[in-house]
């Protein structure tokens, strides 16, 4: 056992102990328990903290409105500490010991694939609320985030039209980055462009000097980034420090979901183009109400509500809507209610569940980073998850349980 593992296991043991205590003492017997497994510490906490804040607010609002089915909703929070082993442990704890009605959680696609089988096996409903690479087809799982057919499909044609057709891809080295870069290749090819190279980086790489030189040598029209986590932020720092931002523009399928635009200086990321379901500047009445409530709860100086936070908020609302419709928290009844195609008026616009694929139909916007803010460029209304729904039909094959992967 090395030093790091030792620390992680010791810290984990203590955390597991406390989480368990909380689970048994603070809850009333007939509360509806909602499990949340997110990274609140470690390299991925930039993503996890806003997600848990949004979930907390959603549950408090539900309780203020009288709860669900006449009962209070209680949040059981597990901090997975950016550690995959913790995900398995907590998924089992949520399903078997705390017996929660639903688990909202998982941030990276790697973590989703760790907890999804555990929850499916133990018959515990699972909501994955993160924008991801698409293709998950599992009747026990609902993916409420946007997928490449909704985002990359907008982002790439826009960037190619604006900057040119030669693309260089840098991506995180695990399933999300690998599959997303395949999607990028597909859309670049469809637009008549070419991908010069794809480079993958493990999540702890911090020295990007040689890569930046290689990109400069290749002279692409723009760089597409699917980098993930705290260590990869140094790519943007080194990119800015080498003066590259002014020379080669960048689009990203991950930037800003961890509020990188606030941590970095404007001269390190201005002008980058992004595509998500939610941006804080969306001008719907629902968003105004949401932001007012959010800032009242977490402070007016809260940096920026991220795509992932909104995904989690909307994921909970969808589940609550389905529970109301089903009149029960029974897993199969809730799944059937979800599959009937329920829909909510969310801050990002209308969100409807696509019953056949367990993904969502929602609005998508393009935005540009400008002085620590995200300015909306264009909005596409009611986009279907056509990547997943073209291969996944859970109404026809309810026993399907796999992740479809695109072949280019």
């Amino acid at each position, binding site marked *: 056992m090395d*030093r790091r593992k030792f*620390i992680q296991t010791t810290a984990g043991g203590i955390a597991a102990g406390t989480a368990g205590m909380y689970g048994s003492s603070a809850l009333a017997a007939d509360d509806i328990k909602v499990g949340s497994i997110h990274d609140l510490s470690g390299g991925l906490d930039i993503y996890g903290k806003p997600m848990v804040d949004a979930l907390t607010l959603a549950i408090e609002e539900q309780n203020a409105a009288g709860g669900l089915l006449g009962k209070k909703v209680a949040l059981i929070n597990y901090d997975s500490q950016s550690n995959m082993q913790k995900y398995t442990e907590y998924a089992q704890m949520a399903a078997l010991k705390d017996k929660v009605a639903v688990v909202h959680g998982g941030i990276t696609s790697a973590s989703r694939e760790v907890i999804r089988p555990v929850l499916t096996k133990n018959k515990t409903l699972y909501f994955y609320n993160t924008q991801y690479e698409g293709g998950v087809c599992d009747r026990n799982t609902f993916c409420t985030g946007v997928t490449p057919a909704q985002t990359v499909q907008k982002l790439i044609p826009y960037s190619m039209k604006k900057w040119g057709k030669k693309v260089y891809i840098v991506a995180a080295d695990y399933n999300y980055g690998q599959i997303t870069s395949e999607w990028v290749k597909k859309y670049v090819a469809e637009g008549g462009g070419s991908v010069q190279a794809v480079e993958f980086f493990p999540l702890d790489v*911090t020295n990007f000097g040689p890569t930046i030189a290689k990109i400069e040598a290749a002279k692409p029209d723009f760089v597409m980034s699917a980098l993930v986590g705290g*260590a990869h932020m140094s790519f943007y*720092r080194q990119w800015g420090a*080498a003066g590259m931002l002014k020379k080669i523009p960048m689009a990203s399928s991950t930037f800003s979901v961890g509020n990188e635009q606030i941590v970095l200086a404007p001269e390190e990321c201005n002008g980058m183009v992004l595509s998500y379901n939610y941006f804080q500047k969306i001008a719907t009445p629902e968003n105004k109400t949401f932001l007012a409530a959010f800032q009242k709860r977490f402070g007016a100086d809260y940096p920026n509500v991220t795509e992932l936070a909104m995904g989690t908020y909307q994921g909970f609302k969808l589940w609550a809507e389905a529970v109301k419709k089903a009149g029960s928290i029974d897993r199969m009844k809730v799944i059937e209610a979800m599959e009937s195609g329920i829909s909510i008026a969310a801050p990002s616009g209308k969100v409807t569940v696509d019953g056949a694929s367990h993904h969502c139909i929602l609005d998508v916007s393009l935005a540009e980073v400008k002085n620590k803010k995200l300015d909306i460029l264009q909005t596409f209304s009611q986009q279907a998850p056509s990547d997943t729904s073209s291969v996944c039909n859970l109404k026809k094959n309810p026993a399907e349980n796999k992740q479809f992967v695109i072949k280019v």
Partner: protein
Amino acid sequence: MDLALIVSVQVLYAIATLVIISSGLAVIFGMMRVINLAHGEFLMLGAYSAIFATKAGVNIWVAMLVVAPICVGLFGIVVERLIIRHLYGRMVDTMLATWGLSLLCVGLVTSLIGNTTSGVSTPEGSFSIGAYSVSLYTMALIVIAVLLLLAIRWVLRSTDWGLIARGTMQNPGMADVLGISPTRVYSITFAVGAALSGLAGGLLAPVSGVVPTMGGSFIAKAFITVIGGGSSILAGTVSASALFGLINQLATFITTPVFGEVALFIAAVVMLRMLPQGITGRFFKGSL
């Protein structure tokens, strides 16, 4: 041509990084024979000192070059007094004690500051070599590494203090007889080593994410450089850094950063098989 230049700059940068992260260890392990497993945490504390000083409004260069080494140097004095002093000559025990210290530091910093990645922007801008741009900070690190080596050489060779330190390390009994207090020399040497580690942490803060566990990613490389270098602390550090930095960066250019790291470690294993005493066990014998 431009590409060759840019590759050389990146290679020099990799060498400079190795020199910077291993010089503190070279003093503590190479001179004092103390296996300091908390070296990575000394770097981490240096990085945090630099970040906190910058956030408090101190100029970033002052924070990196002055505040970080002073903070960690003072910490080194305390550590030497409380722990290391009682364990000189007991290598395995110092290893255990510093390992415990490293766990303690990571735990303490995590509970005080949290396990969140923080950082500061890289100072200075960039300049162009032909069609390529290079961050000025990269050049600054190379220059600092060279100055650091010259300074260490000057202190060890040309000052009384360097002579006394080297003499005491070789024969503490004789130094004692000649009226020099070995405990004081040990204490100061350890503090200097710690300060060098702190400086390294401060200098790395802008280019890498700063987290309580960041030491883990540097300590293996630092030890490999110092052990690969062999008994001469200066010539050893320079030659090992040059060899490993070159292999690492060339492999990175040809393939990926992941394979670059793998190539470095393979080179280290092969080299230690052929030169078990390190590079200076065979070449540059008797140099500083």
